[in-house]
Structure formats: C-alpha cells, structure tokens
C-alpha cells in the first residue's frame, strides 16, 4: 500500500513537471516559422505618370478578425514614431491593432500593414500573442468603415531580424492587394529593450463584399 502510494506520488510529481515543461513549450512567444518558399512573380504594373501618396479618404479599417486564433480586435490608425519605425496602437495598446495609415487602405492596391503587440509588460498575452500559429491558407478578415468586409488569405509566414527586414516587400509591394501583419518574436534583449525578431504574416486579398 505504502509502495503504491509512493509510486503514485512520484508519477504525479513528474507528470506535473512534464506538464509544466510542455505548458511553457506551448506558450512560448518564440515559435518556429514554416519555411515557406515564396513564389515571386514578375507582375506588370501600369504606368503612372504621377503617383499619388497614401489614400486621402475617410474610409478606414475598423476591425480585424482572425478566426483561427480568435482575434477580433479594433483597428487604430498609426503613423511613424520618432525613430522612423512603424508606431503601435496607443488607445488600447494591448488589445487594439494598428493600421499604417500612410500606406494603402486594406483592400486597395499595394501592401497594407497592421501591427499589434505580442505581449504586455510582464509577459502576459496581447492581441497578436497567437499570430505565430497562423499558417498558409488561414483566413484574415477586415471590416471597413463603409460596411465592406475584406477577406484575405495567409500566403506566407516569416521571421526577420528588425534591422534586416525587407521593408519594401513588407510596406511597398504594389504588385497586388496585400495585407501584412506584424508582431514581435524571439527572445527579449534587455539592453535593446526589444525582441530579437519580428514576425510577418503575409496575406493576399481573395474577396470583398
């Protein structure tokens, strides 16, 4: 009886610790990217004698929905911070997402970009905590202020060091109608006060209604 009890306690103890390990594994903010090989194509672009800048319109994206990771978040307009980097949401920093309002409106030609925090101070999850779980084929929806719903499909998931990220590709690819989602990833670097990597989820418009 005593031996059985001891064995049961041992099993329970090791199970607890193993569960803890697996739990950490599941919750780790540093996930692996699927090594998707993009399929770049040379896309014709129409001549534009004088290109216009960011769309000057009262229409704006309202809400971001990503069913696969249970995201249903308001979208704030964000600009560029004093360092020249894309700013992050300020109204509700951890729950909202931020649309780069100097770039294209989601659903228009070009690469619209929405960012969101990975975590809060202390490490608890923020709006894009589970962004790393997205895979090619997953759906991303944007509700626009004019009532339209845009449906995008994930085409690629990539991790970059921030100083080596392909900025033109993320923000300036106008060969199609894209929406790119950005959050942080990788280890926290205390002396830089940032994470080592950025996660970019590339999506392409598939329908609008």
């Amino acid at each position: 009886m005593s031996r059985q009890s001891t064995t049961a306690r041992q099993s329970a103890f090791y199970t607890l610790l193993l569960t803890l390990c697996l739990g950490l594994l599941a919750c780790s903010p540093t996930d692996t990217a699927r090594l998707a090989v993009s399929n770049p194509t040379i896309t014709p672009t129409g001549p534009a004698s004088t290109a216009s800048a960011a769309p000057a319109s009262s229409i704006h994206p309202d809400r971001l929905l990503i069913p696969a990771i249970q995201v249903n978040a308001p979208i704030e307009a964000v600009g560029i911070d004093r360092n020249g980097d894309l700013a992050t949401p300020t109204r509700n920093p951890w729950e909202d997402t931020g649309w780069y309002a100097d770039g294209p409106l989601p659903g228009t030609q070009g690469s619209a970009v929405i960012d969101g925090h990975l975590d809060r101070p202390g490490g608890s999850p923020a709006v894009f905590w589970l962004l790393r779980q997205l895979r090619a084929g997953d759906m991303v929806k944007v509700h626009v202020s004019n009532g339209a719903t845009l449906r995008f499909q994930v085409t690629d998931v990539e991790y970059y060091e921030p100083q080596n990220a392909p900025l033109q590709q993320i923000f300036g690819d106008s060969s199609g109608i894209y929406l790119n989602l950005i959050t942080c990833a990788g280890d926290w670097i205390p002396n830089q006060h940032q994470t080592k990597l950025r996660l970019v989820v590339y999506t392409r418009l598939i329908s609008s209604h």
Partner: protein
Amino acid sequence: METKQSRLSWGGLALLLSGFCALTGFLLLPVISARASTTNQAFVRIIHSSPFVGTADVFVDGNPFLTSFAFGAVTSYAAVPPGPHKVQIALVGKGVGAAALTETLNVQPGGVYTIAAIGTAPTNLNLLVFKDDNKAASGTARLRVYQLAPNGGWMTLHDGNESLAGVNYQQASSYLTMDTGASSFSMASTAKNKSLSLNATLKANTVTSIFAVGMFNGTPGARLVSAQVAATPGMPDTGSDPAPLPSNGQWSTPWLLVALTLMAIGGTLFTRRLLSSRW
C-alpha cells in the same frame, strides 16, 4: 523497492531533461527560420525617359512586363526575384524579337531600384539604374531629383527661391528632407537657360521623385514628372519587457509569480523525493 524507486527517479529525471531539451531546441528554432527566409525580393520601377523611343513594350526575361509604356511614364515598384534579368524594350506591338534594346540587369535581394530607359540618339539606347532608399523620415517628406533630359546638362532644382540640389544628365541627387505641404518647384538648365516648373504637395512620410525628361528645343519637349510613394517605416516594437521592475510596490508580473510558485512547489517535492529515496 529501492531498485524500483531508483528507476522511477532516473526515469523522471530523464523525462524532465527531455522536456527542457525540447524547450531549448524550440526556442532556438526561430533564429534558424529567420536565417532561412527566402522571400527577400528586389523591387524595381521603370521610367520611360528616352525621347527617341515612342510608346514601347517592355519584356523581362522574355516575358511581357509592361505594355504601351508611354514616354514620361513611371511605374510603381514591382517585385522581381533577385539576380540577373534580361530587359528588352521594343516599340509597342512589335514583339520581343524587334527589341531596340537588350540589356541584362542584376538586382540584389531587398534592393530597391529606379531603372530609367534613356538615350541620346535613336541608336544609342541604354538603361540607367539608380538604387533607391524609401525609408521614412518621421513626420517629414523626402525628395530626390533625377536629371534624365539628354540636352539639359547641369540642372538645378529650386523650391521657390531656394536652391535645393544640382544634378547633371544621368545623375540623381541625394535624398532631401523637406517640410510637408504644397511646393512650387522649378528646375533650371544652365546650358539652355530655361526652366521647367512643377507644383507638388509633399505629404508626411512620403518619398517624392522629380524627373526631368524630354528635349529642350525639341520633341518630346522637356518637362518635369513626379512620382510619390509612401515611405517605408522601420519594423515596429511590439514586444514588452517580460520582467519589468515592479512599480508602486505591487507585483506587475502575475505570470512570473505563478511560475515562481510552481518552481517552489516542484523544488520542494523533488527535494523530499530525493531525501526519502536515500533513507
């Protein structure tokens, strides 16, 4: 019993080590992924600035890239795979076999380029490559001028009475940081003693290009063409300090507290297990 307990202890430790090894390997994977990224394309835009070629078709690697590309037109940036590409330009509708220009250009991963089709004579066509930098300057506008008018010689860009930059044929200025708002630009040719003008609104966080194209005292006539693109910001800082200093004497890190509690319980149980197995 001793033997069985010992086996259980070693088995448990093995399980623990496996868990930690998996965790460690897992944490390293994103670095490998970042290095293995394969989507770093190059981006090119093309301006038709050859006065001696009419509306043209452009082919890249033998495939149609642009059709009915008119003199003075500027494309938006298009993604192309890095590496060498054969660029051919033919009069519209003539097909790639009648190309007036064939040239191989090599573009780098992540590179951003303006490619100008230029020429000082019908038989002297060429492609001129400028490396662009569309990074944002917070809250301001950036401006660059390209001199592509064959007989314009040295030209100076002015904003009102202020001289901004001087460039010779086939040259581009450095990037200028400008105040935002409406501007009346002029670009004067010293050799021709003539000036071209252009009104443009410089918006915050944009990059504007001004191209001088065409022929002074000729056809098509010299003029300024502008193109404005949204600047590319740096990557956002969307992470948070996992262990910030407590503020106001409060624990601001509940997750850390939970983790420490679990570690304390685990450590106590494990120590007791080791002690009991020795006795």
